[in-house]
Structure formats: C-alpha cells, structure tokens
C-alpha cells in the first residue's frame, strides 16, 4: 500500500510537457506506457520527489491508471516518495566498495550531517542513504547526487568534507 504522509499539488510546465512528448515519441503508437520510467525521472528532477498528485497527473498524461504509476514508483529505488534534502547523497554500500572503506565513509557522513540515514537536515540541504552497487567498484568508495547523478569517486573523509562544504556554500538556490 502506498502510505502517503505528504502530498504536493503540481502543475506541469509547458517545457516539461514538451519533454514528456519527446519521450513518448520514442515508442510505437499505443505503447506510451513505456515512457513511464523516463517521465518519472523528469518529474523527480523538477520537484525533487514524486508526490501522489504528480503521479496521478503522470497517469492522466499517459492514459494509464494511477495504480500503474504507483506500482512502478514503489518498485524502483531511484524514485523518492517523500521530500529529500536538496542534495540527496547516495553512497554505495555493496561488497566491493566496503572492501575499500564505504562503511567508514557512511559513518562519517552520518556524523558530519548529524542526521540518520533517510532523514533530512533541518536546513533542508542534505539527506543521505546507502544504496546498492553503483557499478563503479574500481573507484570506490563512491557516492552520487541526483538529479544529474554526478559521481564522486575514491572518497576519503577529507574529500567528503570538502564536498559537503562546497554544497553548503551553494545553499538552497541554484
């Protein structure tokens, strides 16, 4: 069951709708449901997470049932069903990265940000979580930050501190 703690009414911009249309054009007529995953990525990049209202409007746009969107959004780990920090740090926690110190890096991030995995810092800037293998095992430990999924490799406590400082200076604005 989709447990909704928070909702956010959205109105898709003309620009976003144009992007949706381009995605739908990649598939044969009548197979517009194929556009669901890419469109959910576009929506999440716009709003930071997927609210029920946003998912319902995606369903209406693709002429599918809302449940078809919910079941996809809850299956795939990249989709956030609640608000995240402006910078959602995702650290690889799988075997090969752990061989080279990923667990140490996650403990450091937890201490440095002062919030537990899955929580958002009070200033709204950061959240973090461990994720499974990001296919960069030779360059571990690694973390990524959406919506562009910028990659940071060969992490050390120092490089994580420097990254967090840089993001803090950028703040909530672009």
């Amino acid at each position, binding site marked *: 069951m989709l447990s909704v703690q928070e909702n956010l009414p959205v109105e898709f911009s003309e620009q976003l709708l144009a992007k949706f249309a381009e995605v739908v054009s990649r598939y044969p007529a009548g197979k517009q449901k194929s556009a669901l*995953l890419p469109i959910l990525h576009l929506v999440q990049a716009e709003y930071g997470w997927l609210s029920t209202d946003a998912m319902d409007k995606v369903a209406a746009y693709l002429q599918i049932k809302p449940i078809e969107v919910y079941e*996809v959004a809850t299956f795939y780990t*990249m989709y956030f069903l609640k608000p995240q920090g402006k910078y959602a740090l995702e650290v690889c926690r799988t075997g*090969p990265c752990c061989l080279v110190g990923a667990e140490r890096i996650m403990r450091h991030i937890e201490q440095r940000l002062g919030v537990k995995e899955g929580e958002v810092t009070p200033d709204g800037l950061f959240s973090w979580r461990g994720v499974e*293998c990001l296919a960069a095992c*030779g360059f571990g430990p690694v973390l990524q930050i959406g919506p562009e999924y910028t990659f940071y490799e060969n992490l050390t406590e120092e490089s994580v501190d420097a990254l967090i400082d840089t993001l803090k200076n950028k703040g909530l604005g672009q």
Partner: protein
Amino acid sequence: MGRKLLLEHINEPGINTFAVYRQKGGYRAVEKALKTMSPDDVVEEVKKSGLRGRGGAGFPTGMKWSFLAKPEGVPRYLVCNGDESEPGTFKDRYLMTHIPHALVEGMIVSSYALGANTSYIYVRGEMMPQIRILENAIAEAKAAGFLGNNILGTGYNLEIYVQPGGGAYICGEETALLESLEGKRGNPRIKPPFPAIAGLYGCPTVVNNVESIAATVPIINDGGEEYAKIGIERSTGTKLISASGNINKPGVYEIELGVPVEEFIYSDEYCGGIANGKKLKALVAGGSSVPILPANLITKTATGNPRLMTYESLADGGFQTGSMMGSGGFIVFDEDQCIVRNTWNFARFYHHESCGQCSPCREGTGWMEKVLHKIELGHGSMEDIDLLWDIQRKIEGNTICPLGDAAAWPVAAAIRHFRDEFEWHVLNPQESQTRNYGLAHYADPLEPVVQ
C-alpha cells in the same frame, strides 16, 4: 601486451566524439556490413567468431541471434542491456563513458543483422551522465548519416533510443528488462516463450549486453575467424574485466581470454598485485553471484593446473573447487577481509534486489541475510550455519529467474570453502567483534586430488 579490440584507442583524446572515432577507423564495420554483406552474412560472421554473451551467462551470441523469429509484417527489436548492476562489474559504464561510439556502431551492425528498425539501449537510471553521452553520440551518428532513414544510401532505416531504468538489479535479467522497458515493475517473465519469439511488445526481440554488441564491430571488421583465433577453446576473443577490491591497480582491463589468473592479479600490466603488501585471501572472479574461491584455488585448479581467465578454466572443478567467468567482475580480497561480513553484505544485496515474485527467493534471501547478520554480530550458533546451507539449497533452481541462484551460490561457496571462519565467529563471539579471522590456512597448498 595483449591485443585490444574494444579499447585500442581508449587513450586517444576526443575518442568520445564522432570525428575522432571516425578518424581512427570507426564506423567501417557499418559501411562493410550494410554495403557488402546481407544480414545473414553478419549473423554468420558472429557465429564464426565464437563470441559468447558478455553479460554473465556466456551464451553464444550468434546462436542467440539465429533463434530470432521472423514472421512477416511484425517488427523485430534489438535491446541492449546496459543495466550493469552486478556487484564488481563496471566495464559497461567505462565503455559507454569513454568510447560511446563503439556501442552505437555495434548497435547499427547488430540491428541490421537482426532486421530491427527501432532499437533501444536500456541503461540503468543511475548512469544519467552516460545516458547523456550516448544520446549525444547517437545524435552525432545520425547527423553523419549513419542513423535515420536510408543509411548510407542502402535503404536501411534505423532509430536508436536510450531508455533509463529506475534502479533495480533485477532489470539486468532480460525479461525483467523488457517489462521495465514497457513501463512496468521489473518482474521476470516465465520462459518460454523466449524473447526471440515474444519479447518487447510481444514481438521477436534480442537482448544483448553492451560489451557483446560492441564486440561485433571488430568481428565484422576483421572477420569472425580472425576474432576466434584469439583466446583458447570456446573462450574466443577479448573480454573486459572489471578489477576491484584490495589490489594496486583497480580498473577496467581488456584481456585476451586465456591470460593466467596469476598474471592478471600480480603483473603490472593488470592489477599490479595485492595492495599494501598484503596477501591474497579470496577471489570472486565474475561478479558477486559466482562462487567465491579461497587463495589456494585461485591461481591453480584443484588438479594443479594453472587457472586461466577463460570460461572453462574459471569453472574447472565445478562448484566444488571452481567458479565462473560471469560478467568479469573480478573482486580481490586481502587477508584482512572478513568472509562472513562480505557474505552478509552480498546476501543483503540480493534480499534488497529480489523482485518478490517467487517465494523461495523473496523469503529465502531475507532469511539468509538475517542469519548471516546474526553470525557476523557474534550471536550465531552452529545450527545457523547448517540452516544457511539448507536455505540456499531450497532457493537454487526453484525460481523463475536466475536471481535466486545468484543469491544462493555466494552463500553456498562461502560455507563450502570458509566454514571454519563461520565456526570461529560462532565459537568466539566477542573476539570476532574486535578482529578478523585473517588468512588462516586458506593459502596453504592443497592435498593432491586422489582419483
């Protein structure tokens, strides 16, 4: 120095652009295939090459292609599997990042061979930068007349689109990938029907790994027979190996199949030896799903022959004393690593990634994770070790897709080869929380096999 077929020009500045790739001989395979060969000729060359699927299963690519149904008036699809998620594997990310046109060129050649006019490259969603790189490469190729309508005046039409996944290991399984591409949850389909008969949108479909598709380029350029001259026995050509863990030079290496494992680990051309002067304890040779091997079964097989980087030699001895080539995810463990902790970590991974469709996998992976965590934390009993063995036995072979097997094998192999390390955790609950079991006897020479 081994021959490089995929990464020959990897250090060329600008090789990610169409102009430089073309100047280095790129898109010759497209010209050759479309202008001088029939689609069946292309399939024949790939068959002759002996190329085996580079995603993990190692099924002959040419044979897979020859199974494709060709009913009149029904579109056929080529879908490239770029959902690289097998722990220890990062070769496809590397290829797509640095030499994207190798994949685009391979897609054109392969699509032509299969008679596909629309092809998709399914890339895991976390690889957004690589998705942009590929979309850019596709646009460049199209502007140069290698994609779109009437390619090179041959009358052949092809569009290639990149599809992002949503973060799910299971979508690397080909039927789950097709479900995902249709906008659904990644639940694997029951086979038959195989995708070659009813795949994407119910149409005949071939799903191939990124590296397999890229490998068709040198196969067409030089001919399948030339490609098959590289390697040993049924392990032909070159293979990208993703090397990670406690080694001096982690990274992606293109090897000629047949390089000794010892040379791959210790020579400066490849991994450069174990990091920090430590000793080798264990190896996962082909991604987290394949059986882990202790030090004394890595460089030599149980019968005392040098172990080679080939499909056959890595599997020598079966699961009793061998492993698998898998996806080429080569994870090296030094003497300080805890096998129990790593096995728990992998078990958690499979629990997290199980789609939940089949009970043995959905329940079994979670159960194994819990039991392993208990042992790792020093709360385990001897019966727990037997319980783990029992659970993995009940998962293996009892699920729709191979994720169940992939979850069972690492646990089985860890207990098979490292049982005393598990027992040490049980018998020394406090000490096991402060230090690791270490290398112990795992590098000691084996007793000669009694026939």
